[in-house]
């Protein structure tokens, strides 16, 4: 096992940890905004770590550029949708209280 | 058990789910989704047999057919959506109400 492989495995495990944290946050956090927080931050960080690990493993510059762009686009899309979801929820909550538990 | 066997069994289950959904669900959109799931089952069967018949590479003919099939599914799905929305606009119905 070379040093690169060790680093790859460590990066992957860290990424997995953040994904687990994100999922647990989505499942356990009490309200929408904290869930959004858990999801869009922890998961994207986890994806970043996994992307770094895979870029190291694949070890081709062209692939590394592509992987970086994958991460970057995911960041863009998920931050935009996070903003939209949060704003939507806030606008919904403003007019009256107690709408959160509507089923 | 090979990977393609798992997927070919899955394809049969998906097709059955789709066909059940077409008959059992009432809302138009769900019916459309059910047809697309049915199509997905068929495509999965094709691709899994392509994997079975692979030599140096997987059999390209089913792959090409599946790509064509997906396009056709998109066109028909879009048309079905247009019809459903038009019916909703004109009558306010969201499903076929034959019982009444």
């Amino acid at each position, binding site marked *: 096992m070379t040093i690169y492989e060790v680093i790859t495995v460590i990066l992957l495990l860290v990424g997995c940890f953040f*994904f687990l944290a994100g999922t647990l946050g*989505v499942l356990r956090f009490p309200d929408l905004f904290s869930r959004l927080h858990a999801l869009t931050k922890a998961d994207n960080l986890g994806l970043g770590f*996994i992307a770094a690990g895979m870029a190291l493993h694949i070890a081709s510059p062209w692939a590394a550029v592509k992987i970086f762009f994958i991460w970057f686009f*995911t960041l*863009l899309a998920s931050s*935009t*949708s996070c903003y939209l*979801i949060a704003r*939507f929820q806030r606008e919904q909550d403003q007019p009256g209280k107690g709408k959160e538990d*509507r089923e | 058990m090979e990977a393609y066997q798992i997927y070919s069994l899955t394809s049969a289950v998906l097709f059955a789910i789709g066909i059940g959904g077409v008959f059992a669900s009432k809302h138009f959109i769900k019916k459309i989704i059910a047809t697309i799931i049915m199509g997905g089952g068929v495509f999965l069967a094709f691709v899994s047999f392509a994997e079975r018949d692979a030599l140096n590479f997987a059999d390209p003919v089913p792959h090409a057919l599946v790509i064509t099939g997906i396009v056709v599914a998109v066109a028909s799905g879009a048309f079905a959506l247009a019809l459903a929305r038009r019916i909703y606009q004109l009558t306010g119905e969201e499903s076929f109400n034959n019982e009444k």
Partner: protein
Amino acid sequence: MDVVFIIVSIFLLLNIALGLFRIWRGPTVADRLLTTQLFGTTGMAVLLVLAGYLQELTLLNVAITFNVLAILLVIGLFQVWKTRKERSDDNI
């Protein structure tokens, strides 16, 4: 090395499966949307890991396609909400 990749991808798929609870439970529409976001990010990670495992660089193109088109969904979503709000029908 391969075992690590397999374990990681299984772990990520299990993450997706766990996230399904939230789609089911809700309680608000926004929660469900957010969970689809989770699927997207996790699916991307699975694709990356599989690309390394199978040594198939073309999988990166699949991931980029997903990514680039995700923005379309986001904007489509925005339009849905706007129209719903105009009709004062805030429950998607």
